[in-house]
């Protein structure tokens, strides 16, 4: 990493805001107060020095008002630093607010051109990428409608589609990913991953430790305008939490209200856990627009000892019960399950077809249970994806993700991902008589 050249160098940057107690913007008021507008000085950033190297994904973590967004705005050249300088090498795109600059009276098509040229794209380039932008936003049929008739979801998708299709070298992302429905958030994160794989540089601002852990390789922590920590996500997040606690903030509250818990791996017990501690039951996803023959009605996760704790111990068994409802007799149905860790890595995936467990014809309601004899995992929170479809590659009847998860806590001091069965055998062959005696 270190041999890669820095693409963003922040050199002793400070930013001072003036908080006017009363704002005089008219000549008369200025004359009356004779130029003495009362204000307080407030340093949003103080002597920040940091760098982002090529291909890195760097997080800026901090609570509200820590200066992280100000720093991002300075990098994007929206705010000018009061002192110091920032050197940026490469084409930079800032996603600070999706769809800012859209004009409601113009069509989606016109707005794509306008927005993309605001972001610095040449007309010819926009022509080339136009179809990709429209496809990503999934707005093929509405692209010539005026944007004022768009739903907020369509609006956001279009904004994101324009921004990511600019193909910048450096992408600055503010907490825009917090908007949109879960599918869209997923798509955003996937896109960010793609950017990472392509070797682009990303600076990501968030106050959500989980999201930062999921995406970033290196994290800077800001606190009251100062850089207080820098390092890999784990260490940085610890420092962040310590600062938050020092401030007396209720950490759990912030995590819960950050609007991102759908994507992030929330470590909190779900509401209702206290009452039915052994069963986590949630209503199924709303039915797909096309009348699906088979629908997932609910998913229940069961494990022993759940009466006393909301997590598993390593190597404990786990049962996932999938309730279904078939509106008509359906043959050739496949139920599948996938387990992902918080970084989005697939830990395990299987379905009734790969396991050679044909279900035959199903009709009415019923339940398919995936019984894991044991879960040989160490610490972590794991997301489940449940799917029902015809054959392995056939049409999907129903799909459910981001709703079911389980957590494993390792009481021992072993570290890593997998609880490998281990026994330690010590044989002393010589020189230990005294020890034995």
């Amino acid at each position: 990493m270190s041999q890669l050249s820095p693409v963003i160098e922040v050199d002793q940057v400070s930013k001072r805001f003036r908080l006017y107690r009363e704002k005089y913007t008219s000549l008369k008021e200025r004359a009356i107060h004779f130029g003495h507008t009362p204000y307080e000085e407030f340093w949003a950033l103080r002597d920040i020095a940091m760098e982002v190297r090529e291909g890195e994904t760097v997080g800026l973590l901090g609570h509200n008002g820590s200066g992280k967004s100000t720093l991002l705005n300075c990098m994007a050249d929206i705010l000018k630093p009061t002192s110091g300088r920032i050197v940026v090498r490469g084409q930079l795109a800032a996603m600070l607010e999706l769809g800012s600059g859209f004009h409601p009276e113009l069509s989606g098509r016109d707005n794509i051109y306008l927005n993309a040229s605001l972001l610095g794209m040449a007309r010819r380039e926009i022509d080339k990428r136009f179809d990709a932008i429209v496809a990503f936003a999934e707005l093929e049929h509405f692209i010539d409608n005026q944007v004022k008739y768009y739903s907020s979801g369509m609006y956001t998708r279009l904004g994101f589609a324009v921004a990511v299709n600019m193909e910048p070298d450096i992408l600055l992302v503010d907490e825009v990913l917090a908007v949109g429905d879960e599918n869209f958030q997923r798509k955003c994160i996937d896109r960010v991953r793609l950017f990472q794989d392509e070797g682009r540089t990303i600076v990501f601002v968030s106050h959500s430790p989980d999201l930062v852990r999921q995406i970033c390789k290196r994290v800077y922590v800001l606190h009251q305008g100062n850089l207080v920590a820098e390092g890999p996500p784990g260490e940085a997040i610890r420092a962040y939490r310590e600062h938050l606690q020092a401030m007396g903030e209720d950490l759990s509250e912030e995590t819960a209200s950050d609007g991102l818990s759908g994507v992030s791996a929330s470590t909190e017990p779900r509401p209702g856990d206290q009452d039915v501690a052994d069963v986590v039951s949630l209503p199924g996803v709303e039915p797909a627009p096309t009348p699906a023959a088979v629908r997932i009605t609910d998913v229940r996760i069961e494990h022993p000892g759940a009466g006393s704790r909301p997590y598993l111990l390593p190597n404990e068994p786990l049962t996932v019960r999938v309730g279904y409802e078939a509106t008509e007799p359906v043959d050739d149905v496949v139920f599948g399950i996938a387990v992902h860790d918080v970084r989005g890595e697939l830990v395990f995936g299987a379905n009734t077809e790969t396991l050679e467990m044909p279900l035959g014809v199903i009709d009415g309601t019923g339940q398919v249970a995936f019984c894991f004899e044991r879960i040989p995992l160490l610490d972590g929170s794991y997301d489940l994806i449940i799917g029902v479809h015809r054959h392995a590659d056939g049409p999907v009847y129903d799909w459910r993700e981001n709703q079911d998860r389980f957590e494993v806590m390792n009481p021992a001091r072993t570290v890593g991902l997998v609880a490998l069965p281990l026994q330690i055998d010590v044989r002393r062959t010589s020189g230990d008589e005294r020890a034995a005696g």
Partner: protein
Amino acid sequence: MLSGREPAPAAGGPGATASSLPERGGRAEPRSHKTPPMRVITPDASVWRRTLDIWLYRELVAGLVRKELKVKYKNSVLGFMWSMLNPAMYLGVYYFVFQIVLGSGIPLFAIYLLCGLLVWNMFQTAVSSATTAVVGNASIVKKVPFPREILALASVGAALVFLFLQGVVLVISLIAFHVAPAVTYLPLVALALVAIVVLAAALGVFLSAVNVYLRDVQHLIELVMVAWFWANPIVYPYQLIATRLSQHHLLWIYFLNPVTPVVLTFQRALYAKVSPISTVHGHTNVVHILPTYGPEWYLALLLGVIVVSATLFIGALAVFGRLEGNFAEEL
């Protein structure tokens, strides 16, 4: 090659076999490396860099102008016709009032008026809409990085496009009233356009930045424009003022107004009557309207205006750069 969580079962969700799972590790080819543009963000940016930035974003000017035009006449049946109906109305009313009812000393007064009025209207619209350009686009200014001068320049550009549209009316009326333009002076019209555009851009960029801090400016400028209008020989003939001022050797004062040479050029080239014979109520006499000098005089004046305007423009960029740093917080 999206993440392993790509929610398509066919591609590798729960139903996929191990071999068909997407590989997250599969890195894309390193992207080709051309020398990336380098950008240094400091408290102040030089005028040279500002100019360069504007040049890099020149397509945005066109894009914003297009937007302005589209938005202005969206959902109206006549659309761009409206911008032409305005001067056509002027032409009709003034022809009726001054030619038929009152009887003016200036022959074809409506056309004389239109020659000066169109270019003045363009200047006035450009400056006053540019003044509110930054404040009016606060949502963009706060969220998207781009040279903000562009907003003011786009206002000037839009006004220029309207001038061309309204120019169609002028051309039609020239043909209808059998007025032949002065061919030797026609190239000067292009130069006059350059002069007025640079001047409007200079004022627009300057005022758009000042208006962020002092919102009085946008109201003040409306008043200033009313007075400034009468400092130009648009409604009255140039010679009326010139003869009186030159008696006191004060004619130079009149040319402190940089718009005057532009207006005069338009009138000289298109109206093209320096001292026509006028017949009012049976009396025939010669009216002195325009200066009697040759094209060189106009050329020199216009070049002077361009030099002054360009200097003002550079100054405006410097001021804009100084004030721009706090736009996002002031808006």
